[in-house]
């Protein structure tokens, strides 16, 4: 009696999982990731001689490609082509992004403002999709790519009916734009994790990730506006200021200008003391 080793079984299983691309002009190069509703492969488009990200769906539907095709935005991975495999499964080819996933990319970014600027770019793409009636529903750092030139792209829009990812998924069962706001808040929390946050930024995160959807930002634009205001040293909607907060923020924002004015007053006083008439 002969035994097949685990390694061989594993290899056979992998071979069986490789989609049969006969009849298409794509050649699979390597498996990249398992996204929502399918597997993403790095493939070669033999017709145009370029590398593409090819997603083979677990189901026959082409809805995901149709959703993506509606979203032409610099922050959303564009779809080049769609098709169907011999076994009936649908696939679509996207631009292949040679970059880092956000969860890996952030290790090279130390400053909170730089990290928040990435969130702003994500917000732009998500707000664009919302304006076209498309919700993401599975926003998380693993679904954000940062390209070699700093471009930020939101991926994996095909989980409209899938449950999402614990930790980033809103607690409510109805998943509208505020569910994506929750996920964006969770992404901010991930990006600033372990850092000392000031009250306005903490308030932004808390408002975005409020358990009650009604207590969250009403849409992604409102969240983005608050992040932009925070980055500009302006008051944020999530954190009503006392007059002391306003003074502290003013001094913080115009620190050098305040130092210069105080220096002028001190010099004037010293001149009066030592050289006064």
């Amino acid at each position, binding site marked *: 009696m002969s035994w097949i080793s685990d390694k061989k079984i594993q290899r056979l299983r992998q071979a069986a999982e490789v989609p049969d691309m006969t009849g298409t002009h794509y050649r699979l190069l390597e498996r990249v990731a398992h996204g929502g509703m399918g597997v993403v492969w790095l493939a070669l488009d033999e017709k145009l001689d370029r590398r593409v990200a090819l997603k083979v769906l677990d189901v026959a539907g082409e809805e995901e490609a149709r959703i993506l095709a509606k979203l032409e935005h610099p922050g959303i991975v564009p779809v080049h082509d769609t098709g169907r495999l011999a076994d009936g499964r649908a696939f679509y080819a996207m631009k292949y992004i040679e970059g880092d996933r956000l969860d890996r990319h952030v290790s090279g970014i130390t400053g909170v403002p730089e990290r928040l600027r990435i969130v702003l770019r994500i917000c732009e793409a998500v707000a664009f999709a919302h304006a076209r009636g498309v919700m993401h529903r599975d926003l998380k750092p693993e679904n954000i790519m940062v390209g070699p030139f700093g471009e930020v792209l939101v991926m994996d829009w095909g989980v409209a009916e899938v449950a999402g990812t614990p930790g980033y998924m809103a607690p409510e069962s109805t998943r509208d734009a505020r569910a994506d706001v929750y996920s964006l808040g969770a992404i901010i929390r991930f990006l600033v994790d372990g850092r000392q946050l000031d009250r306005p930024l903490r308030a932004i995160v808390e408002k975005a990730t409020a358990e009650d959807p009604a207590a969250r930002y009403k849409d992604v634009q409102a969240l983005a506006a608050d992040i932009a205001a925070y980055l500009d040293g302006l008051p944020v909607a999530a954190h009503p200021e006392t007059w002391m907060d306003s003074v502290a923020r003013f001094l913080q924002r115009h620190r*050098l*200008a305040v130092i*210069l*004015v105080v*220096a*002028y007053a001190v*010099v*004037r006083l*010293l*001149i*009066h003391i*030592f*050289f*006064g*008439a």
Partner: protein
Amino acid sequence: MKKVAYAVILGAILGALDGFSAAYEFGFGTKVLTLAGLSSIKSLVVGLAVGITAVYVRNKGVIIAVGTILALVFAYLVAAQPDPDTGEKYYAHIMGTGGLVGLIVGYATAKYGEKTGTVGA
């Protein structure tokens, strides 16, 4: 606001205020008005130079240095003129704060003024 106009206006205003602050020493009078006028013109010229520099140079340090050095030079030229009443020269009074005004104009122009000729996105 264009950088040059911003720097000129700021220089003129801060220069005048700096001149008026001499009232702290001398009390209000013709002497202080003259000082305020001279100081305003001096800082206006410094502002013009700072503004033009800021149009061509992005480096904040260079813009601030130009403001400070030019203000000190002009302040020296003003301070070198003796007081017509007493014959005294007020180097510390004029150069001390005059240099700081140049520094403030340089800093504010580098930070807050918009660049000439840029098109809004």
